């Protein structure tokens, strides 16, 4: 049974549901529990949404690429999309946010702090970053990213699989 699956999709919101369904089937075929599949599907949707929202798709060939790789104890999800120069300054904020989230042993702590910040109503319309915190907390996953050659942004999550993440055999 193949351990990884890859999707090359157009930057189109309708594509998200398709990837979500197909990746759920893939994860199901590896006996992951419904709760785990639900969490991973949430992560996949969040990452693709961000990819479409912040990506730079000037050429027809520019796509969002999603790679899901399943090992014995981990699932790694990587989402690639091109970004333009103007996005680079936002990546410093992404860097700080990810380090801040991962600075907590329990992502719940990042979650409650971010919820508190959002409830403090910033007068300017800043991004809440709540999606990333949900990935860490509800998805129980480690977030990371880098920007590679040709300004290709790779946002990834690594999720550890505990015993209860798989269906009993």
């Amino acid at each position: 049974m193949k351990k990884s699956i890859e999707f090359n999709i157009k930057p189109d919101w309708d594509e998200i549901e398709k990837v979500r369904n197909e990746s759920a089937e893939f994860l199901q075929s590896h006996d992951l529990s419904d709760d785990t599949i639900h969490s991973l599907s949430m992560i996949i949707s969040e990452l693709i949404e961000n990819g479409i929202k912040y990506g730079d798709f000037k050429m027809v060939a520019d796509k969002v690429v999603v790679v899901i790789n399943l090992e014995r104890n981990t699932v790694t999800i990587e989402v690639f999309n091109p970004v333009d120069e103007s996005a680079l300054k936002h990546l410093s904020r992404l860097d700080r946010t990810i380090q801040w989230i991962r600075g907590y042993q329990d992502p719940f702590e990042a979650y409650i702090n971010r919820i508190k910040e959002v409830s403090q109503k910033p007068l300017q319309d800043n991004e809440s970053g709540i999606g990333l915190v949900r990935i860490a907390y509800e998805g129980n996953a480690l977030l990371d990213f880098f920007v590679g050659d040709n300004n290709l942004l790779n946002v990834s999550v690594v999720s550890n699989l505990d015993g209860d993440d798989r269906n009993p055999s």
Partner: protein
Amino acid sequence: MMNQRPPRFNAHLLQGQSKIPIEAQYASRFSLLIRFFNGFPSDQAAEFNKIVFQQNGDKIEMGPCEYIVEPHDQHFQGRLVFNQAVYDLNSLFFKDKLEKLQGEFSNLPLILAHKSKIKAAFKEFTANLTYDLTIYKNIFDSLDARFADEPAPIKHKVQTAIIETEGRKFMRFLDQKLDEFENLIINYSRKDHERHGFYLRKQLWHFLMCAPFMARTNLKPRGYSGDSVMMKMLYDNRYEGDSTFARLMHKHPNEHPAAQAVRNRRQLISEMLGHLKSGRPPSSGNKLRVLSVACGPAFELQDVLTSAEDCAKFHFTLLDQDKSALSEAASLLARLEKKYGAEVEVDLLNESVRTMLTTPKLDTMWGKFDYIYSMGLFDYLTPPVAKAVLTKLFQILRPGGEMVIGNFHISNPSRFYMEYWLDWVLYYRTEQEFIDLLKNVTSAESRVLFEDTGSQMFLHVRNTER
């Protein structure tokens, strides 16, 4: 913030159906100075439904509020304070956030409920530990009070005597408690660890906050773990803190294997660079080009640069995301230059490794290096990022050049002490996982080494290209 002129603006107060025009000015975090424009008896206290004004194009409404007469001010007639929802005016005027003081309670049900999945045995362990620590703290604090008025040198001697006797016994007590703790959590899942760590820290919070090292790792004032101040505390390995108890709590994690591993790795890098400099006489012309990735304050350079000749042999490129750490490294190099009367060639790069990879043709911009090292970085990089960074670093390694990368091993005996008590989480790897990060690079010859505690491993890579 305090250097900014206090914002002054026109507003109106609502009282029933009446709309009362005023001039207002930020006075303190929770009060405004106000002056009534006309027709309102300004010598009497009064209550209002709300204050309304514009700020940066947004309509702000806050209330209910109360007017307090303050007759001594030359311009304003009194202050406005909020008597139900208490608004933080620092946040409003200086951070552009409408924040209520009571907002701290907004997550209360969620936080209280978080303890529902804590195992009974862990609760019992934590309760006992809290009791024991309270007793120890009370005794050490009462001893501190008894010698508090002694002259400084006497105070120091008395405190040292207490630390060396009862203090060391307390450290052994902490060791025993940590053994008990490790046995208790041995079969916990990752989610259990996260939840129980949160619970433990909440229970022990005021004990943790009194120890400078534990406070810093928990609070992370620079936004990330392992900043240069924490590194300096680890290297110094001293008793630090405002009380004997605080000093002991500070010292204990600094004596743990992971802390010793950090001190060992500094020595290892110094030795490797020392070996490198002795193998290349300066007469060969070219300087040894060394890149330190996530260099921090680069304390190891004072072990490497011990003469004017040493300074002449190297060209350092120091990269870090933290400007403060780079500035500390620059100060250290300036001190060494002064000490040896020689110039050290150095480039300081304020970059994050996560975004540096966008730089096209990194080798053209930064050049190629004889030696690349990175000690406290890969512990925070997940495999996709670690692979990308390592591959890119390998591309700027000269043929025959060497690279040494540190990463704590999965068996780090301080792991759960760090995670639960210090809120310091690393990405641990096995030897194979570490080596696999470079498996797509054909011209790399790799091996894994360990420092003496066995907590930390080093991926030693040589570029075998000719």
